[in-house]
Every structure is written in structure tokens, then in C-alpha cells.
């Protein structure tokens, strides 16, 4: 079973506002509320694609109950630790006319040492029946910045592959421990490398350096609708065009879910990338997070432009 870890889940609130600008007062034409956080999103998409997962992390307060209840109704296995405080709410404003998205995130509840210890004992217990761990998103206050390092190390001691999808300092620390897969965003990589990664050559160089830390698969975003994939079989670029795109919100996690599902089914590298990118594209074609189903993902594979870089 795949286990997803979301240390700082969120209730995602997506508002569609036709012409959004700061300083105004707007009425949303559509509101979408869903349980979120990177790991939880991956669990939800894998469920939509027909794969069972377990989700774990920390939940708190009213929002935490909402998330647990939603996951329960989706029949996703859960093992969250309930803590004091309130799980955060992340607000996204989708401007349909200007085609821009604005986001607003909260820090999340404070996690104490005792709670971290309890989480770790749950983590070790669930690893006994885990085939792969997805570690995703930001860290709530109280969690040490190198926490992903520890989680990757514990999984590796048991020969369990890991997929790290994070940003900033927690990602940097986690990369040192060499997760099997890492998804990094271009802006972060630019800051990390200290060079602008607007050229494909620079990006390839940066991704290669991450690979040298022991990461088998590195996925880095390239321009708005593309990703560079460093894989054991070479470096590839995959992109889709912007036709029909409504919101990229959640697309990154659909890509992760698509790559994992296709990997589990034994598809080759190219097929995995195409399937993952098609899942990301399907997610982007509607306001609702996630994918409709497997067949609607498969129909979009022909829209992915695929190129071998080296």
C-alpha cells in the first residue's frame, strides 16, 4: 500500500472570481471546498484512479474533522494524529478572465515534541505494510526543518522507496537524504543554485546535481505547462499546451499520482511520464481538484509533447 504523509494539511478553498484585482470587493461565481495538502491530494487522485492508499499526518480542530470526514467518505485509510489548535485553510482565487491564480496560506497548528514522537511511532507501525511513502508539502510550526530527512531515513532502513514533493528548506534538507523521487519547483531550484534557470541547459545542470545526491527520479517544472524529468533512462521534457486550461491547482499532485500508479503497473519510463502529464492536464481542465477518472486521463495522453533531452 502507498502511504501519503501530510504534516500540514489544509482545507483548500477555491474561489472563481472573473476579474480579480487587489483592493476590490468581489462575489465568487463558484466556490470549491476540499481537503488538501500535497499528500492528501495524492491520496485523493490515486483513489480516483482506483488505487488504495493510507493518509497520515496531523489534524486539528473543526477543519481537521472536516478533512477526516471527507477522507473517510472517500474510503481512504487514515492514521492522523489529532492535535490542539486548528488545521489551516488555504484560499485560492482563480481569475477566469485574466487567467491568473492568487493564493493565500496559513502557517498551521503548532506541533509539540510529544506529538512528533507519537507520529513517529505511528509512522514506523504503518511502514510494516507500506510499498512507497509520499512526503508532501510544508511543515507546520514546531516540526524541525530536517524532518523529511528523518522520515526518508526511516523508510530507507526498511527498503521502502520515497517520493518527496516539497519546497524551500524542508526540501533541501530532504534531498540530502536521497529520496527515490523528488519533485522540485523551478523557482526554488533557481534560488538553490543561485543562477536563473530560464534556460533549459541550466535547469538540466541543476536537476543533474540533485540526481547526484542519490535521487533516482527528479522532476522539475519548466515554464508553465512543462516538466523536465531526470530518470534512470535519461532526461526528458514533457509539455502540454494551454488549450482549455482552467486552473493548475492540484495538477502537481495529479502528476505525482499518475507517475506512481503507472510505475506500479510496470509501465516504461516514457509511458509513465505521458500518463503522469496527462493526469496533470486532466486536473487543469476544471476547477475541481483531482481527475475525473482513468479513462479521461488516458484520452489526453495524445496531447502531451514528449522529447528526449539527453
Amino acid at each position: 500500500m502507498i502511504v501519503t504523509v501530510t504534516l500540514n494539511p489544509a482545507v483548500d478553498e477555491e474561489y472563481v472570481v472573473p476579474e480579480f484585482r487587489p483592493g476590490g470587493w468581489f462575489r465568487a461565481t463558484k466556490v470549491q471546498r476540499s481537503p488538501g495538502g500535497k499528500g492528501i491530494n495524492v491520496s485523493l487522485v490515486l483513489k480516483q484512479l482506483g488505487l488504495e492508499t493510507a493518509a497520515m499526518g496531523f489534524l486539528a480542530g473543526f477543519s481537521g474533522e472536516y478533512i477526516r470526514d471527507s477522507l473517510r467518505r472517500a474510503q481512504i485509510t487514515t492514521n492522523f494524529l489529532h492535535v490542539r489548535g486548528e488545521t489551516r485553510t488555504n484560499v485560492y482565487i482563480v481569475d477566469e478572465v485574466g487567467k491568473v491564480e492568487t493564493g493565500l496560506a496559513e502557517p498551521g497548528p503548532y506541533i509539540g515534541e510529544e506529538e512528533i514522537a507519537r507520529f513517529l511511532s505511528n509512522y514506523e507501525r504503518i511502514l510494516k505494510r507500506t510499498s512507497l511513502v509520499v512526503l508532501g508539502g510544508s511543515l507546520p510550526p514546531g516540526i524541525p526543518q530536517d524532518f523529511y530527512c528523518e522520515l526518508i531515513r526511516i523508510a530507507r532502513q526498511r527498503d521502502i522507496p520515497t517520493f518527496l514533493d516539497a519546497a524551500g528548506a524542508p526540501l533541501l534538507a530532504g534531498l540530502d537524504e536521497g529520496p527515490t523521487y523528488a519533485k522540485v519547483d523551478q523557482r526554488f531550484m533557481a534560488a538553490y543554485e543561485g543562477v536563473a534557470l530560464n534556460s533549459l541547459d541550466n535547469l538540466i545542470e541543476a536537476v543533474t546535481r540533485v540526481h547526484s545526491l542519490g535521487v533516482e527520479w527528479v522532476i522539475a517544472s519548466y515554464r508553465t505547462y512543462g516538466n523536465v524529468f531526470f530518470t534512470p533512462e535519461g532526461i526528458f521534457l514533457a509539455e502540454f499546451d494551454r488549450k482549455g486550461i482552467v486552473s493548475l491547482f492540484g495538477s502537481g499532485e495529479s502528476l505525482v499520482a499518475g507517475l506512481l500508479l503507472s510505475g506500479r503497473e510496470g509501465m516504461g519510463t516514457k509511458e509513465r511520464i505521458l500518463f503522469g502529464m496527462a493526469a496533470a492536464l486532466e486536473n487543469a481542465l476544471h476547477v475541481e481538484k483531482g481527475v475525473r477518472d482513468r479513462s479521461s486521463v488516458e484520452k489526453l495522453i495524445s496531447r502531451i509533447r514528449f522529447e528526449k533531452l539527453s
Partner: protein
Amino acid sequence: MRICEVMDRDLTALSPDTPLSEAIEILSRHRVSGIPVVDPSGKVLGFVSEKDIVKAALPGYFDYLQDPSFIPDYGQFQKRLKKIGLDPVSKVMAKDVVSFSEEDSDFYVAITLIRNHLKRAPVTKNGVLVGVVNRADLLERIMMEEESPSPA
């Protein structure tokens, strides 16, 4: 209907050496009346409910009295509760656990829970915890289901 379609796939569990104070905190924060106790591999060893804890915090003779008016005063109850708070859950948990498999029917599970005066029970696969069933959820499900024709 099979129970795996109704059960709560939650793996919240305690280990036998978890102190009762922590068990109480988890019961309250997770808003549940009972939690499975498992070994490091997730195998169910017991089940601890708030009823077991209350019983442990009351004096031994309470069972014979069968009347709550004999409950000792608040201060005494608190003192006992704090004292047993340091005990491991293995000391008060039910070791003879009523558990179900994912393939059991909702009706069978509901009847078994009612017969054993249970509100919650673990669902296991090869002895390993995979979820929990709640009596209230089951009652709701059975009420919503279409009536099966009664035997002539």
C-alpha cells in the same frame, strides 16, 4: 452489504504500554468511545473503551452495588483517575476482542455488536487492524438500505 463498505478505515491505535492518560487524551481529541490496542506490526491485541477506563477508576466494590449513587465523591474519583493514568492500557483493555473481517455482512456485524453491548469494534485482515466499525453508522446504513423481503 459487506462491512468494508461501511467501516471507518481509520488506523488510530494504541500500543499496550501507552499510559492511560494518553489514551484518555486520544479518546477525547479523536471523539471516539474506544480505540484498538495493537503490537508494532498492527496486530490487534486488545480494545480499550472509555467504559473500561471509568470502571478502572471506580473502586472495586462498585460492580456489586449496581447503583451510581454510590459513586465516590468527585475528588476521590479524580484522584483515582490520575493514579491509574500512569498505568499502561494493557492493564485495563479488553483482551478478548470482538473483531470482524472485511467480508462480514453489515447485518451480522450490527447484531454481534448489539449482543455484546459494544459501540465500536476493530475490523482486521489476518489479525492486522484495517478499520473500525461504529454501531451508529451501521444502524444508519441498515435503516437506509432497501428492506429485504421477509421469509414467507
